């Protein structure tokens, strides 16, 4: 029973990180129909920036409380990552808005490799320990262990989601975003500036990715220039899983994916009598994805996108 609860907690923590990154993918996809392959790298840049700031602060102001450092670094790295994502969209995607569909995909892949190499040059390729800033003592709930970092992750995810939902559903910007996603040309006729909306979407996506990146770093305790790749891939899978272009779908997809992975790697050994071990955990995401898409080609909560290739 306690193992079950433990896997549930781990799955939720993992899932909330996927969900936050998946939201960035799904928003961009919903509006400009682009798989933003560089999104995972935005997460990486956010995490590395926050690491650099924290290390700097620990040297300059050793007396500062951990949670304050975390907040300060989170705010600054959100700004950095947003600026970066804003610039990426302007340089690499905007000029290709009316080009053949594969062209922006290739620039996105190029951007992703470029960001990785730049990060490697700036931060050196080794793994860097991410300091534990919250009290490390584990808290026991009914036989399962939860750390204060994990509680922070769950709380931060809930807050981010609430803010995002408010933003999208009740503000002028949110209405403009939904209108542009529906039909950019008509939205423009109604006085919405699609370019501004798209830029705003990239900024919001970067903020969410950075929050996820900082969570990821605090949860696993290390940062590196390749750390964005796998979460990015999983988050994209989550977005497709939930129905790409659908915000609630991204959240549901992310959390489900986290749970599947956590339970899968927790129980696969026992289920197969030790033949398959937990190192197969990375493929659960893809197997689930293939099954779901075979049964429901538009994802769990997706609308039937009639025939847009």
């Amino acid at each position: 029973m306690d193992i079950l609860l433990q896997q549930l907690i781990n799955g939720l923590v993992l899932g909330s990180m996927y969900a936050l990154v998946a939201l960035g993918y799904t928003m961009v996809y919903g509006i400009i129909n682009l798989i933003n392959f560089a999104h995972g790298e935005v997460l990486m840049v956010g995490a590395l920036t926050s690491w650099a700031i924290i290390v700097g602060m620990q040297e300059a102001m050793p007396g500062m409380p951990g949670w304050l450092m975390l907040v300060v670094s989170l705010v600054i790295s959100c700004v950095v990552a947003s600026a970066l994502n804003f610039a990426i969209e302007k340089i690499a995607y905007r000029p290709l808005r009316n080009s053949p569909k594969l062209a922006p995909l290739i620039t996105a892949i190029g951007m992703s490799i470029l960001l990785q190499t730049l990060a490697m040059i700036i931060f050196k390729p080794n793994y860097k320990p991410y300091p534990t800033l919250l009290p490390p003592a584990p808290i026991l709930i009914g036989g399962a262990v939860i750390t204060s970092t994990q509680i922070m992750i769950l709380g931060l995810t809930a807050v981010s989601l609430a803010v995002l939902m408010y933003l999208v559903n009740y503000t002028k910007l949110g209405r403009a975003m939904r209108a542009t996603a529906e039909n950019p040309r008509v939205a423009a006729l109604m006085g919405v500036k699609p370019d501004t909306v798209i830029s705003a979407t990239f900024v919001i996506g970067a903020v969410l990715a950075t929050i996820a990146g900082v969570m990821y770093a605090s949860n696993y305790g290390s940062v590196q220039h390749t750390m964005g790749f796998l979460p990015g891939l999983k988050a994209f899978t989550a977005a497709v899983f939930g129905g790409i272009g659908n915000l609630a779908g991204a959240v549901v997809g992310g959390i489900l994916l986290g749970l599947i992975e956590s339970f899968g790697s927790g129980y696969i050994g026992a289920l197969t009598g030790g033949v398959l071990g937990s190192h197969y955990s990375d493929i659960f995401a893809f197997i689930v994805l293939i099954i779901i898409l075979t049964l429901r080609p538009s994802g769990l909560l997706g609308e039937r996108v009639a025939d847009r290739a």
Partner: protein
Amino acid sequence: MNGFIERQNKYVVYVLAALALAILPLLLQAAGNFWVRIADIALLYVLLALGLNIVVGYAGLLDLGYVAFFAIGAYMYALMASPHLSDTFQWFQQTFPNGLHTSIWLVVPLGAALAGFFGILLGAPTLKLRGDYLAIVTLGFGEIIRVFLNNLDHPVNITNGPKGMGQIDSIRIFGLNLGKRLDIGDYSINAVTFYYYLFLILVVLSVVICHRLELSRIGRAWMAIREDEIAAKAMGINTRNMKLLAFGMGATFGGVSGAMFAAFQGFVSPESFSLNESVMIVAMVVLGGIGHLPGVILGAVLLASLPEVLRWVSGYFDLQAMTGGRLDASILRQMLIALAMIVVMLMRPRGLWPTPEHGKSLRQNGGK
């Protein structure tokens, strides 16, 4: 008359190109095996890019897991032409005391067939999907294959896991061992040069096949599906079979090049078949000019040889010392490839050498 001269010019160009390609390795060989190796690798990538071009370029199905077929071909050859199976399994050694040194005439068709089978296996559940959904599923398929290659060393050791398989036989054709240097009098032809000719023959063969496919009913059907699937279906094209055929044919090329790769390297490990490779092959096709054979070949040659040449350049100038260890050859290579991908796409979104015909069916066509 005009046409006659043009046709004659065309043949002159062909003959000259053939001569140049035939002499190239002998010239490169004089400069060092390193350069011939670059040419070999470039040819292998051309083969892969041609295969992917069938799937992405002709049929318009974005496949991000193409490297899986490359891996299947390579591992199949490695299993059949290395001592791995005899070393691992007692019963196998008893049945084949000298190991399975399979002939290339068996391996190539088998590799092609196996990869083709997997291609169809991948294609079947994804038929309803299109565009980006398809991209992510194929990507997942590639990763699944890679994870399995990486982990199938336990409990039964089939792939030897991350350590990879070595001691793979080189290719023998009609008693000629391509892995050994051949001395003809004073003149010697290196192993890499033999492989160059083998790969060149395969590439030429593939170009002919692709060209014929492009002009055939099948090719037309693929392009119709690419431009507008619903319309294609309405015109009586069996889109399901055609898509499966595209996946199968594309995968076949991947399988053959995989077998060649294993024989050429003498070693395979899961590392060679990462998602990055898939992405690189897609980039070759798109960068060169999707759906256009000369463009695809150009893209493959450029992207495959550029990194190797850069490796040489950065070794020559000793970048590491110049930048205090921050910038070395491999980082520079990656950075320049990424920049090339971005810049080329921004300047020429249709690729470096785009097809004049792409999308023609959507425009008004007066019949001339």
